[in-house]
């Protein structure tokens, strides 16, 4: 499984755009990249997933360069409620379809007024 590296913590202010970069140098051809968000005392929540180029949904964008060795989660105009831990995961659907999520330590984002 590809190992991921992301910053331990980040600080931002309300209304700013936040970009969290994740490094995954050993990503395999059939791996895809998924980001989760976790608030204190809650389970992780799926944010976005992508394989290559750019993916966008109502809450975030995911940028993946051609070599796929890194990815960037972009949160537009953050608010105080975006203060959370953000996890970057890289994985694949294994043979037979039994798969698991491998979490690292994540990035603790603190949004200030």
């Amino acid at each position, binding site marked *: 499984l590809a190992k991921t590296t992301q910053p331990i913590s980040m600080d931002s202010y309300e209304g700013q755009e936040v970009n969290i970069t994740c490094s995954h140098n050993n990503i395999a051809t059939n791996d895809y990249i998924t980001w989760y968000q976790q608030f204190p*005392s809650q*389970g992780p929540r*799926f944010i976005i*997933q992508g394989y290559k180029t750019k993916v966008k949904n109502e809450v975030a964008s995911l940028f993946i360069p051609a070599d796929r060795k890194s990815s960037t989660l972009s949160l537009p105009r953050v608010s105080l409620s975006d203060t959370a831990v953000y996890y970057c995961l890289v994985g694949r659907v294994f043979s037979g*379809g039994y798969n*698991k*999520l491998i*979490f690292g330590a994540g990035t603790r984002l603190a949004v200030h007024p």
Partner: protein
Amino acid sequence: DAGVTQSPTHLIKTRGQQVTLRCSPKSGHDTVSWYQQALGQGPQFIFQYYEEEERQRGNFPDRFSGHQFPNYSSELNVNALLLGDSALYLCASSLRDREYGYTFGSGTRLTVV
């Protein structure tokens, strides 16, 4: 549409005791995974159940066992509790072969004293 339901929400046990945690998956999901999350760490995969059988297991001792029932609900059992077992235990449900479809519960906070 109910999401993943875990019970109890909090639990205090004494070293050496046994504990059972319960999980009801999201409607339509057939696979249940359990994770342990120590304070300040990312969730660690314990095991996964599908069709009432353990399909994958993480690096956890045999003290950790589980069960899945015909209605897809699941239990996590931990025997001979250690202080180090204190953590947030998360249940995630999914539909087989759909990795991005994981839905997490809010977890059970277990404290071993």
